[in-house]
């Protein structure tokens, strides 16, 4: 019953988020601040992880190709497919559930504990619109961060190839170009948009509706990370089946 109640509350929160909008002059500042905190502030970790994971995918693929009949360009092909289809949109989103999600839950949760949300409500401000809406809008730029992640993942694979001597640069580039399907990129960005919405709203829900003190803020952050990850993984399965399945 608690789960059903929470799911209902989550959708009510989303509906409430669009009511009685905050003045645009104030909202604009909030959106820009959230873009800085949530997107620009995450670029470093996305770039770092994407580059090295791209490299690792390349090394693992190259090391597991022992059959001489399998062409060497398969390393580039496998890296491209892994990075574009799954690593960049899904695994990066799970990492972001830890980084961005915890930040959102703890910042909103702290505002709840210190009565700052009550202060907004008493002033007649729609606190959900004020707090959650700008984060949701800011995270709509998340696909750009993921595009950078895709590029750097493939670049990391290329660096591993060249400097590790696993395959030639020409073979790697040939692999990147082989059987390229633009729909896969579109599929990846559709997933990323949906994950961005999940990344903004589930942590906000856990922060906004938390009860208790400082200890509960920590617990809410953990719960938020778990649920955001679970929902991302479930949605990943559903979307993949819907968009790529037979």
């Amino acid at each position: 019953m608690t789960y059903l109640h929470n799911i209902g509350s989550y959708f009510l929160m989303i509906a409430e988020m669009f009511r009685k909008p905050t003045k645009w002059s104030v909202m604009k500042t909030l959106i820009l601040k959230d873009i800085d905190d949530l997107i620009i502030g995450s670029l470093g970790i996305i770039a770092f992880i994407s580059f090295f994971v791209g490299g690792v995918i390349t090394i693992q693929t190259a090391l597991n190709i022992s059959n001489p009949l399998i062409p060497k360009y398969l390393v580039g092909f496998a890296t491209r497919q892994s990075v574009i289809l799954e690593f960049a949109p899904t695994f990066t989103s799970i990492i972001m559930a830890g980084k961005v999600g915890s930040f959102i839950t703890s910042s909103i949760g702290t505002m709840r504990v210190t009565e700052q949300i009550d202060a907004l409500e008493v002033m007649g401000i729609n606190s959900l619109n004020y707090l959650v809406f700008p984060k949701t809008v800011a995270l709509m730029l998340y696909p750009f961060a993921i595009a950078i992640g895709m590029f750097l993942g493939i670049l990391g694979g290329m660096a591993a190839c060249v400097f590790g001597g696993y395959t030639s640069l020409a073979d790697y580039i040939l692999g990147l170009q082989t059987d390229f399907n633009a729909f896969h990129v579109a599929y990846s960005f559709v997933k990323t948009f949906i994950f961005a919405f999940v990344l903004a709203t589930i942590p906000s829900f856990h922060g906004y509706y938390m009860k208790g003190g400082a200890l509960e803020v920590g617990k809410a952050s953990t719960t938020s990370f778990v649920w955001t990850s679970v929902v991302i993984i479930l949605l990943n399965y559903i979307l993949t089946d819907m968009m790529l399945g037979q």
Partner: protein
Amino acid sequence: MIEVKNLHKSFSGVDVLKGISTSFEKGKTNLIIGQSGSGKTVFLKCLLGLFEYEEGTIAYDGKIFSQLTEDQKRDLRAEIGMVFQGSALFDSMTIAQNVMFPLQMFTNLSKSEMEDRVDFVLKRVNLDDAHGKMPSEASGGMQKRVAIARAIVNNPKYLFCDEPNSGLDPKTAIVIDNLIQEITDEYQITTVINSHDMNSVMEIGEKIVFLKEGLKAWEGSKETIFKTDNEVVTDFVYSSNLFKKVRKMYIEENK
């Protein structure tokens, strides 16, 4: 004026407010007092619309709160100033930005007009040189004064204060009490203060509502509280020997 009739509120089947009726008058400092757990904070949060209640009515100058639409409730709240127990200042904003916030949200004043208004209210609460400080850099007393400045910056019709003196030394507490009373008189605000500080009761209690176990046990003023023979009130208010002596002296002097 705020009128409350037969207010009932419970949590998980436990009655916290059991039918409170009272009124809070314009231009007066109205105090809600009572022991911890008597329902003061719940009462205040019901008045503010932060808690929904099961039964009863709360009317702000004749407008019954529960009959208002969500948008009308939000419009009414724009006329309310609130000083929270922990000040509830926005951590990410400077003191001046905190005070300017209600103006940005609810007025169409130009930036310079807003700055002038912020300067005025910060001066009013004796914080002329704190504009650029962050809330974390301010003392407890300063934070309370910033919270008062934020609450009055938009000329509210109603001012609510939840334990405005908690955590403050006696001297600063008196400064805050006097400030609230001066502002109430000056702007003719309906002020409601939730407190269990007896100094506040004696200093600024123009109307006092005493709660016990979710019921209104007594109501009066700082003058009548000395004379009352209501045992529940005297047990609470004169629980310290000092206050017992003060009361005895007062009664003897006024015989």
